[in-house]
């Protein structure tokens, strides 16, 4: 078996697919191996799809972290179970594919607020790569939206607003953005604006609403890209090894990384593969655990960890969630898409950064009636009609921006999971001030529900979780404030890179995958230039 490559990529998700494709497109005979800890789960399989439709079963959920494999400590429960797909294709097997750019102020959080961190790059450094990422992922977005500067139109037009979105849009038109205590210029107002959610869907998407397991491959899944690369006869030196958890990165000296060690889960054999360049693209959970596990005479506390920063500054999003109830639903609305179509960046601006920006959207699952379940339960047509046209609930939700804190840390705990990866503990706490800020933001959402003429029946801050975990091996200007540099190379090494959400110094208030993909495109350019 071949054991020497130009590039070793650890992890088989969107970052790995983007990097491998970029390098292979540039030079077809580049030798690359991708090492993925999880198994391959077949996509676009009709039987799997029918089982999803008729039984609600998804074939990849068995790879999710169980609570015993990933727990948390601190003053708030951090959801670690059920959030990551550990398989070939990574979490793009199940992602919602909301594709939002970070905003310029997200790159200067510390400068603007005195909290969190700044990025060593600016929005302008990433802007053209955002264009590449949107094309690669096939993002359907609204060119008329002017929230964030962009130099190219979206590759695919947006999904339309649903009829039920209209009620929230009308409420937003009547409401101002409220600048609360802690925002810049409290007391100032401006209008709330409505936007169409940018979503990654290929043109062939049939709008089925079964995006959690698509029968036709209508939504980006890194597995499709990796399959294409594997099957392309031009790429003769490209390999993917699944069921291959990497447990150590090995060095020749302080700066030169030599190889990685992995186990073949099927045979139990341990292998070492050598690479000129090694990219850790295995997510914000595994990257810090792998770095800290790689201890040697040059790196006593793990690679990149001389200043005890690996795994720290965990950032996530908390979900704000307000539910309103109407006494009737005369139009018999239920959710017809399986993704949200209405959003607003009105509170996701620099002015709200100090207190914590929020990104608002109408929840994707309300209003809704599970008609089939009512039939299964033996309700008659008349009884179902009463429910369909009766009480209706609508949720508004928002991601709340959080700032990285030194004490919030993700690390390995003893034992390995079912795929041979170290188990996880997340230490995560919020301050009283953060709790208060979250509750203040909640009041804004309640106002919107009330303006819609609905009764607020629930208003809560949901726990943070691993869906959008970032920051655990963050970028920065030097090894005293960060783990990696502006090109995502681990400080004081020559050839070890991190391309995962772990690299993000801040998490903004929006989903991270588009930004990660843009950074992967940027890394490809850097690696190409380095070789040249």
């Amino acid at each position, binding site marked *: 078996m071949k054991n020497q490559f130009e590039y070793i990529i650890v992890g088989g998700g969107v970052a790995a697919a983007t990097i491998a494709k970029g390098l292979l497109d540039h030079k077809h005979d580049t030798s690359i191996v991708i090492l993925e800890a999880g198994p391959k789960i077949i996509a676009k399989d*009709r*039987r799997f799809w*029918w089982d999803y*439709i*008729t*039984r609600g079963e998804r074939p990849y959920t068995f790879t999710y972290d169980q609570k015993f494999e990933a727990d948390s400590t601190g003053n708030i429960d951090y959801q670690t179970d059920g959030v990551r797909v550990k398989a070939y294709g990574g979490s793009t097997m199940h992602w919602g594919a909301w594709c939002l750019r970070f905003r310029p102020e997200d790159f200067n959080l510390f400068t603007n607020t005195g909290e969190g961190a700044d990025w060593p790059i600016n929005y302008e450094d990433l802007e053209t790569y955002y264009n590449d990422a949107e094309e690669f992922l096939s993002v359907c977005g609204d060119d008329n939206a002017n929230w964030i500067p962009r130099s190219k139109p979206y590759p695919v037009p947006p*999904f*339309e*607003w*649903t*009829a*039920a*979105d*209209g009620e929230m*849009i*009308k409420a937003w038109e009547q409401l101002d953005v409220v600048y609360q205590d802690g925002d810049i210029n409290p007391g100032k107002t401006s209008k709330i604006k409505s936007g169409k959610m940018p979503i990654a869907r290929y*043109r*062939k*998407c*049939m*709008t*089925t*609403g*079964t995006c959690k397991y698509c*029968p036709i491959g209508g939504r980006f899944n890194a597995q499709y890209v990796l399959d294409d690369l594997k099957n392309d006869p031009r790429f003769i030196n490209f390999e993917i090894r699944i069921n291959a958890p990497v447990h150590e990165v090995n060095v020749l000296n302080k700066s030169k990384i030599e190889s990685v060690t992995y186990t073949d889960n099927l045979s139990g054999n341990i292998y070492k593969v050598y690479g000129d360049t090694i990219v850790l693209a295995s997510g914000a959970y595994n990257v810090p655990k792998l770095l800290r596990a790689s201890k040697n005479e040059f790196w006593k506390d793990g690679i990149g960890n001389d200043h005890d920063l690996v795994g720290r500054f965990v950032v996530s999003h908390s979900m704000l969630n307000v539910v309103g109830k109407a006494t009737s639903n*005369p*139009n*018999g*609305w*239920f959710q*017809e*898409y*399986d993704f949200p179509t209405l959003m607003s960046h009105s509170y996701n601006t620099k002015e709200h950064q100090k207190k914590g920006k929020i990104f608002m959207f109408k929840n994707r699952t309300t209003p809704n009636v599970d*008609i*089939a379940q009512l*039939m*299964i*339960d*033996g309700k*008659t*047509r008349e009884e*179902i*009609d009463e429910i*369909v*046209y009766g009480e209706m609930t609508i949720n508004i939700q928002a991601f709340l921006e959080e700032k990285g804190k030194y004490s919030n840390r993700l690390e390995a705990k003893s034992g390995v999971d079912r795929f041979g990866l170290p188990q996880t503990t997340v230490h995560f706490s919020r301050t009283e001030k953060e709790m208060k800020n979250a509750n203040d933001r909640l009041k804004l959402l309640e106002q919107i529900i009330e303006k819609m003429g609905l009764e607020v029946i629930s208003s809560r801050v949901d726990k943070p979780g691993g869906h959008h975990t970032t920051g655990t091996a963050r970028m920065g200007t030097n090894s005293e404030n960060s783990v990696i540099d502006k090109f995502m190379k681990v400080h004081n090494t020559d050839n070890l890179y991190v391309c995962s959400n772990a690299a993000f110094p801040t998490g903004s208030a929006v989903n991270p995958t588009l930004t990660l993909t843009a950074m992967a495109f940027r890394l490809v350019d850097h690696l190409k230039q380095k070789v040249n």
Partner: protein
Amino acid sequence: MNKKLTCIGGAVCNEKLSASLIFAEGQDLTHQNKEVLWEIFEAIGINWSNTIYDSNNQRSSWYEMLKAKTENPPNYTGEYVNAIYVINELKAMYGKGGAYKKLFFESGVDNNAPPTTRLAHCKIYVVNEFIRMQITAGGFKSWGAKYGGEQAKNYHGFLGGTRYNRISKVRAYDPDAANLKNDQT
């Protein structure tokens, strides 16, 4: 949920079975089997008045599901044949119309418990899955318009065709139309 459930049917329906899928690897459905199963599917639309053309516009989707569930493991053929035994007994006891009413509305089967009788297997593995499939394939469309609203156009799992079509794929909000309506009132 504490209501005591009284099961319907006779000796066949109430015969005890293991809760796991009835083993049938390597077995196939006959044409006659499929015709009886189609009658069950058709009866769903009749009893909830939510399909058109006696559900025949859903027949190809239904058949594709049947094929996927009987030609790939785990094989559902045993469950489908069991459902035929059950429905035959119910029809003998209650007549055709009565049999389906009993099965759909008064079966006494707890949908959340492991199925341990032939009747429960029929309800959970066949009827409930047929209902989900029927709604997904278009059975949802009869809702929305009762009080002058727009008929539903999409639902989880519905293959609506390309969205690059002049007809919207969902009941959509058009702000221009909404503003026009407001101006007129």
